[in-house]
């Protein structure tokens, strides 16, 4: 058998975990991944996002997302009256009207902004993997669900393509796959996080603006971050239990 050094590095930790169960006489229970040990979420650090679109391209590559549909996308906000409404530079005027653009989901970046006035920021968006998800509640056949580790998934062999969930999602994170004709959405790279990898978008983000977080892991840096930063979720008034946390989110973001 020919095993490369890389393969060994991948296999050794898995073997170490499995060995415990082999010794206990229950090798069939040896897990490389235990759903009950995780509760996945994502942290998005708005001031770090530069709008390069790396995450959108990475997601498309990793998950074979069809052109024109997005599992993640980036929006650019421009609040032109930001300085005027608030000379002290505190909060945004709640009545201000932000200009939002997202050309092709921000996949190829954004046009150069020349207007220096006001406030600009980028908001990467993706499925919020809500704990009390409206999209899973409306599915008539049980094809979409919150997995035991907190990821909202679609069973595409079971989905009818009725698009009820597409309408139910308050964040616009679902679409009907143009070829498969079933609901499709961000899986939080479930095939990666169950193997110990981070998501494709986090892997490709050059500034660390996106970070995968495991709320059940007491050593995850997200706990410290949530305590020390002003972190919000999108549309908190809808009580969806959204698990994508935005740092320094402007009040104008919907």
């Amino acid at each position: 058998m020919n095993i490369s050094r890389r393969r060994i590095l991948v296999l050794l930790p898995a073997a170490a975990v499995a060995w415990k169960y082999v010794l206990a006489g229950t090798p069939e229970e040896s897990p490389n991944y235990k759903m009950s040990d995780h509760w996945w979420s994502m942290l998005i650090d708005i001031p770090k996002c530069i709008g390069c679109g790396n995450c959108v391209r990475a997601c498309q590559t990793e998950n074979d997302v069809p052109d024109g549909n997005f599992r993640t996308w980036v929006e650019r906000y421009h609040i032109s009256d930001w300085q005027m409404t608030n000379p002290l530079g505190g909060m945004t005027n709640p009545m201000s009207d932000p200009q939002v653009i997202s050309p092709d989901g921000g996949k190829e970046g954004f046009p150069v902004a020349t207007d220096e006035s006001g406030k600009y920021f980028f908001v990467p968006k993706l499925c919020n993997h809500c704990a009390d998800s409206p999209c899973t509640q409306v599915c008539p056949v049980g094809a979409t669900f919150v997995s035991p580790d907190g990821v909202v998934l679609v069973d595409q062999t079971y989905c009818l393509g009725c698009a009820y969930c597409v309408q139910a999602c308050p964040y616009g994170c679902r679409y009907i796959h143009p070829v498969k004709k079933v609901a499709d959405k961000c899986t939080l790279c479930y095939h990666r996080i169950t193997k110990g990898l981070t998501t494709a978008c986090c892997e490709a983000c050059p500034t660390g603006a996106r970070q995968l977080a495991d709320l059940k892991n007491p050593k995850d840096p997200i706990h410290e971050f949530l305590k020390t930063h002003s972190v919000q979720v999108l549309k908190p008034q809808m009580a969806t239990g959204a698990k994508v946390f935005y740092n320094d989110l402007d009040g104008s973001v919907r």
Partner: protein
Amino acid sequence: MNVFKDAGHLFRFAGLFVLAFLVFLVVRHFVVPKSFGQYGHYRGNAIGEIAAHPVKFAGHETCEACHADVAETKNKGKHAHVNCEACHGAQNKHASADDPSTVKPVLPDTTVLCARCHTASAAKPKGFPQVVPADHSNGLPCDTCHKPHSPAMDAGGAK
């Protein structure tokens, strides 16, 4: 008095009802997937099927297992926090090949690649290093002067 007198039609109907219920149970047994309801009102096996999707981005730990020298250079420079595949693209085909040298990754064109992040725009965070490519290098590829793995000129990055 016999209460069951003239009740035959009720028994026939009850029998029909029981039969229909049995047919329902049999059909249900074959129609509902085995793992449905394992964790909730959905097919439990779907979780495993979704997790079986092929990986395209190998992850920087995998890259660094072989390219430790590049990782060392990169970790000393400004791009320490930028993962390999942020610039080089998805490389699991290269990483998982029996002989990785047979699947050669395409070297990114720095004229396009660097500009994606470093083109000056009023929309970008002020502290982020940005240039107007046309003024900065007059169309020359960035790697004429900067080494992408350690781009600062004063850190020995320039050729």
